[in-house]
């Protein structure tokens, strides 16, 4: 029963209308939100995706697709983007979605006094202007060919101009019925939603669990219908249960080690190269992900159109030792690796890395802190730590984490040439046109960057066989990217 979900629709039969889906998710606390623009944890994301619609979104294989916007086009130098709102798009209270609502939404995101989660991607956004009955112009202070990527993020949901986050009017396939932070959220179908090919469920409930143990038990005792993200080590066991299906999605999600390139010992490129060479990537996938992942090549954005095919880096202890010796560490060195349970597999990866690095004389002292401490004052300034990222394309990812003014520049990568290349590539809307520039940037990171990207983790979920409509999704978000409008409860 494991593997991809090709057989699922067979099990669940033809789509049927009606019923409630109960989806379990780990995490969640008293601060859980239903605000469209400040989702934090997995449950928040699930709510945002289902309650709000964005102008654009990503398909299951991570291509940009139109949503509330029929089209989203740049002008020639990518300084102005024009969105055309879909004909007949309505909010859950039956009102039309107007350009003013779009303007309000983006002003809310970019509110200088209270910037929302997505604000970092819109620093160059000068003004959003309603220019017609259905058109909105995004005027930029500098060229940006990637604005469509930013607008496809789930953090840019469109809300009405009289938006009340406590009692939201929704633009997504569902509207809110009840919300009990840290416990459960119930959503019901939004009949005004513009997409007519889905919307099978009457209701969808998101249930919070304290950890995966309870989550699995709830699934096995049929207290929930589907659960998001199961421990990879248990995939086979759960899959062996006749009642269960496994949803195994290849994604571009990565759990890198982050080396600060401006601090010793990692300010020496040879040390970074040596560290990258000590990793046995296959074993990482095997031990940390129980085989549910793809080997990485120290490069992010694997689903980008312009992803390069550089030679696969392999473990090479002698070479690593040689590099270390050249860098002044003939007897190896000791480093502290800061880790935290920020995503399943992170702490485990640290342990496997420590073991592998020992072979090259690198003594890794693991310092495990709790997630709060990890994201605390010292976040982004650890010398050697870890992090995790969902699927992104290469250039937006660079903007997030590899440039001087990137909000999450955890490796402190600050290379003028590199920045120039990225800036230039960013201004080009067409991906084929910027292929060479991208490759140039990628080559630099591949040779000298501060990330050790040993692999991409699959997103593995489990659900009862009577649930239909769940397909693999590359975004890294669980349960088909949380697109519950496509899900139905079939005959048991």
């Amino acid at each position, binding site marked *: 029963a494991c593997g991809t979900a090709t057989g699922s629709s067979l099990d669940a039969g033809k789509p049927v209308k009606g019923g409630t889906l109960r989806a379990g998710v780990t995490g969640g606390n008293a601060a859980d939100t239903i605000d469209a623009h400040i989702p934090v944890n997995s449950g928040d994301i699930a709510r945002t995706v289902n309650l709000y619609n964005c102008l654009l979104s990503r398909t299951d294989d991570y291509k940009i697709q139109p949503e509330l916007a029929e089209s989203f086009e740049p002008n020639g130098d990518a300084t102005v983007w024009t969105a055309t709102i879909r004909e007949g798009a309505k909010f859950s209270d039956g009102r039309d979605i107007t350009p003013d609502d779009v303007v309000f939404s983006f002003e809310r995101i970019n509110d200088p006094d209270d910037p929302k989660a997505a604000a970092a991607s819109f620093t160059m956004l000068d003004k959003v202007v309603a220019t017609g009955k259905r058109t909105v112009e995004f005027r930029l202070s500098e060229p940006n060919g990637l604005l469509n990527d930013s607008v496809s993020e789930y953090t840019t949901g469109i809300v009405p101009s009289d938006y009340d986050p406590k009692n939201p009017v929704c633009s997504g396939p569902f509207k809110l019925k009840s919300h009990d932070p840290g416990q459960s959220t119930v959503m019901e179908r939004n009949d005004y939603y513009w997409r007519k090919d889905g919307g099978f469920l009457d209701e969808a409930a998101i249930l919070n669990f304290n950890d*995966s*143990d309870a989550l*699995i038990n709830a699934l096995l005792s049929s207290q929930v219908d589907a659960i998001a993200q199961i*421990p*990879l*080590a*248990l995939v086979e*066991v759960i899959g062996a249960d006749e009642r269960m299906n496994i949803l195994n999605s290849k994604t571009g999600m990565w759990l890198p080690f982050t080396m600060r390139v401006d601090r010793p010992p990692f300010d020496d490129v040879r040390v970074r190269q040596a560290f990258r060479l000590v990793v046995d990537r296959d*074993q990482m996938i*095997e*031990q*940390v992900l*129980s*085989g549910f992942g793809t080997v990485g090549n120290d490069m992010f954005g694997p689903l980008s159109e312009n992803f390069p095919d550089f030679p696969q880096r392999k473990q090479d202890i002698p070479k690593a030792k040689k590099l270390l010796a050249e860098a002044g560490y003939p007897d190896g060195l000791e480093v502290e690796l800061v880790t935290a349970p920020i995503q399943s597999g992170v*702490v*485990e990866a*640290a*342990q*496997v890395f*420590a*073991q592998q690095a020992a072979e090259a004389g690198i003594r890794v002292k*693991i*310092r*495990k*802190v*709790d997630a709060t*401490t990890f994201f605390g004052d010292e976040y982004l300034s650890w010398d050697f730590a870890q992090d995790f990222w969902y699927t992104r394309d290469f250039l937006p990812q660079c903007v997030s984490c590899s440039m001087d003014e990137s909000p999450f520049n955890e490796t402190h990568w600050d290379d003028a040439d590199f920045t120039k290349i990225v800036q230039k590539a960013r201004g080009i809307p067409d991906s084929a046109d910027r292929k060479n520039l991208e490759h140039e940037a990628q080559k630099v990171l591949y040779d000298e960057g501060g990330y050790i990207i040993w692999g991409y983790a699959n997103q593995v979920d489990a659900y009862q066989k009577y649930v239909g409509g769940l397909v693999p999704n590359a975004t890294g978000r669980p349960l088909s990217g949380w697109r519950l409008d496509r899900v139905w409860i079939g005959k048991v």
Partner: protein
Amino acid sequence: MSTNTNSLDDLKSAAVDGGEVPKESQTTYTPFFKRVLAQKQGKIGLVLTIIVLLLAFCGPLLLPWATGNTATEFVAKPFSPHGLFGSDNLGRDVLSRFFAGGLTLIVYSVLATALGMILGAIIGMLAAYVGGTFDAIVMRLNDVILAVPQLVFALLAITVLGPQGWVLVTVIGVTHAPRIARVARSATLGVITEDYILAAEMYAMPRWKVLLRELLPNITGPLSVEAGLRLTYSIGYIASLSFLGLGLQPPAADWGLMINENRIALSIQPWGVLLPVIAIALLTIGTNLLADSFARATASTSVEA
């Protein structure tokens, strides 16, 4: 109220600690260990404790010879039935990790107990010896600390200071102290009225000498019982904290941590949990039996066969 409530308090501390309040005086002196070993419980306790201690101390040395693996080596996929007891959540050999995992637990709990005993004995003896306001203040402070559960204390301290070894040892030792202080105090109060203390006073023996030479040897009975019990509790607390994920941190091979890491697969790969659980159980049972036979040994001169 002073008299009756205090007597209730003392009863209380006596009660938790096995119920048998040994009083050391008017007894014939026979070597303490002989009396402990004369009891079945003492023997079983000693054997259990020694088995686990041997395992914990020699385990790391035995490793390569017994399992052929080091405790951190990856030998299989996670949770597969590799080797004698299978592999753990990262595919490491459960038996190797089990061999390597007892030492820190034992060392830390012994240190924590020692710290608590020293602090508690000093506080308790001083409170009883000095008496008066000092005693009252110290004992009320004790009450305050007692009102905050040890685990809550540990939880806060570890979050503030991080899960390092010394934090564990200190926080457990310090939270043990008031409990030990109570026992030390009531034992001292029992002894302090004895005339030999008064005799020492009469000869103007320096006060620290009175404490050290006249008092301390005569409360070793209750104190050693207490030490045994506290050791049991220390082991329990350190293991519990590891189990909650607040104790020793990966990749340390530690029994409590092993339980925490492998608990999720209790049904498919039970050994990763059960081996350390059994070892911890044997150890705590062993130390508890020993403590109990300490109590009997100090409570009576003659010992039932």
